[in-house]
């Protein structure tokens, strides 16, 4: 009967216990650098290159430039090479005329451009190659070499501007540079890097001081989130729902147009421009301060929102969801805005 006290039983018990514990603890992750290969998620543009050793990168980018370089010489940096992506197909004539007038060509036409344009294959890509030289009698006239690459509906322009001798000497490097480039336009717009900015509103992350307000009696607390200072929902019991939120961010958060377009997208309305903004936005007063009221609707959804700038912070009060219910709740939304008060009584 006393089989539990036998040596084999004890050994077996210890082994089973140790193996169970060891297997459990072995499942824990160690802190190590991990590598994962995943399906593409990045939607921005991919523009990369390998620079020739004799070239240097210009830190300051301007306009539509995705990259800007110079040639390192004994007399300091010379010449200017750039990478300029265009989302749409741009004609060779338009490209050439961007530079032609500056170096005395006047306005080029298809006929006058034809002798300056040639097709050239670099690596596996076909480029249009346009060479313009300054129309003045100088020893080393300013030369503009334009390499255009077209892919799908995008156009990539690589201008090389410098003295004729420099351009000629760097032709091979220019070709190697073109061959090394990876060019892929993304969904997001291509944006030049900006330089350090001048004094600007501080994006203080510390929590803003929320104003007081009165919530309509039929609005009920909604899904909380770390970004929302207040969250409510409205439900008419017939399947119509609204989501209401109060958020606040430092600065102008991209400006009025960007915010309105983001919201329009959320209810399935095409984005608008500065001119079209007027049909969605009108000025109102909130707690004695000038603010903007945004109203928009699609076939089944609608939104009412107010944007208030106060102490370099943007305040967003937004009600969106079912169009039918939103129209019923518009009066309550207005009453809510009237109740907003930043100063304690």
């Amino acid at each position: 009967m006393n089989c539990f006290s036998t040596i084999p039983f004890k050994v077996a018990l210890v082994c089973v216990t140790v193996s169970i514990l060891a297997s459990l603890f072995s499942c824990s992750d160690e802190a190590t650098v991990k590598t994962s290969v995943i399906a593409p998620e990045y939607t921005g543009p991919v523009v990369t290159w390998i620079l020739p050793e004799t070239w240097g990168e210009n830190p300051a980018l301007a306009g539509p430039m995705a990259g800007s370089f110079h040639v390192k010489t004994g007399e300091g940096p010379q010449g200017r090479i750039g990478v300029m992506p265009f989302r749409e197909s741009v004609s060779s004539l338009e490209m050439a005329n961007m530079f032609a007038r500056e170096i005395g060509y006047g306005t080029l036409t298809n006929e006058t451009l034809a002798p300056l344009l040639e097709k050239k294959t670099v690596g596996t890509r076909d480029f249009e190659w346009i060479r313009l030289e300054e129309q003045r009698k100088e020893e080393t006239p300013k030369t503009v070499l334009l390499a255009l690459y077209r892919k799908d509906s995008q156009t990539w322009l690589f201008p090389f501007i410098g003295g004729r001798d420099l351009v000629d000497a760097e032709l091979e490097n220019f070709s190697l540079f073109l061959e090394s480039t990876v060019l892929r336009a993304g969904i997001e717009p291509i944006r030049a890097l900006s330089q350090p900015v001048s004094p600007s509103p501080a994006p203080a992350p510390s929590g803003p001081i929320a104003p007081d307000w009165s919530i309509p009696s039929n609005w009920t607390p909604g899904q909380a989130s770390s970004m929302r200072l207040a969250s409510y929902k409205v439900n008419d019991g017939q399947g119509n729902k609204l989501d209401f939120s109060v958020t606040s961010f430092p600065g102008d958060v991209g400006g009025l147009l960007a915010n309105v377009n983001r919201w329009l997208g959320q209810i399935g309305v095409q984005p608008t421009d500065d001119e079209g903004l007027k049909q969605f936005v009108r000025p109102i007063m909130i707690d004695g301060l000038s603010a903007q009221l945004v109203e928009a609707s699609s076939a089944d959804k609608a939104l009412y929102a107010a944007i208030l700038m106060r102490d370099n912070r943007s305040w967003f009060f937004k009600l969106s969801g079912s169009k039918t219910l939103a129209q019923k709740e518009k009066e309550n939304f207005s009453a809510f805005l009237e109740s907003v008060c930043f100063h304690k009584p």
Partner: protein
Amino acid sequence: MSSESKPKKGKSSLAKRRALFSWLIPLANLRITLALLSFSMVLIFVATLEQVEIGIRGAQAKYFESLLGIWHYPEQFWGGEFLNPVPIPIPGGWLLGGLLIINLTAAYVTRFQWTVKKFGIQLIHLGIIMLLVGQLVTQAIQEESRMQINKGESSNYIERFHGVELALTDVTDPSRETVVSIPQELLEKGGSISSGDLPFEVTVKSFGPNCDFDAVSSKDQREGSSKEVDQGVGHSANLSIKPKSEDYSSEAMNFGHLVFELSDETGSLGTWLALAHPAGNHWWKESPKLADLAFQPIRHKGKLWGVTLRAKREYLPYSIELLGIANEFYQGTETPFNFESDIMIKMEGNETRRALVYMNTPLRHDGKTFYQFQMNNAADYTVFQVIRNPSWLVPYLACIIVSIGLLWQFGFHLVRFLRKNSLQKA
């Protein structure tokens, strides 16, 4: 807790064990068991009070996942103005749990009779020990994450609720991305970090779980390690950071920060600042100046890398598509009685599995459990709480063992009683 009766059959075995493990005898004292259970009650009481001030996670870390917690008597209680400044040490969860395991195991070895008659009691105690050990293991290895999916979209990763990672992603290849992630534990250690999959070395200049940050007018006005930043958004937006301690409250907005230098065989490539947004790095896009904090581009040897500090992410070998969401309320009220997500799991080889996840009915798939966590019907998204706990079966096994032990013990006594009764009648 234990039985002191000593029937003849088990006596010799027990005596042998007591002789062999005599040093365990003092540890098996029943008074210790009672003292530890009493301290456990105090611990739960104190942690519940503290939870109001420091949040659930704060109380859990301070009192349950520690050996010792320091508690201050609440000021608003009677005599609080005098007692509050006095630090009171409270035995932590790990200390009490560990001691209870030792105490029960010692009792098991030195006081219990390993006989069939007492087999039920042994099983009951074994079950309790398993519960304690199981909880300890769970605390050590359980991982809690979240997965947010927009309606009609798929997601193939989960994000930890706590902890960040520095993610460096090579996006050059249009058919795939290579993500090299450095976890918070390594960033906290500091120093230089390299990997065969990275063409450069990462040197941590400073790291912290939370900070205040500010755009200043000139580089001279930057503070601390942000002065060293000469690349990326930290440079272009002139960001200055002030580290501060992590906020454990439920409404916490912790901005993780990292200043790091990249270098290759040619030397330093520059120093960058990365900030992790507590609500997800997509929020940086709301501010044009800081938008690149979600993806700071670094061109290196013909490749484009993006770097960001984000919630620690785990990629899954499958993706989950959200087909639909629904929530139902008790009639005439706004009290929900059900949230449900209709999902499709897409595995390798075009294999799919459809499932409905709703309150108290999670999805178990590939070692993970997906619980319905949050839902926004108006914004059309759902959030699952994802738990990976390899020891999830232990509490169930422990309860089964305890139940068998109870049945055995009571059954044994019942049979004996019935036999005795029938003999008397005869």
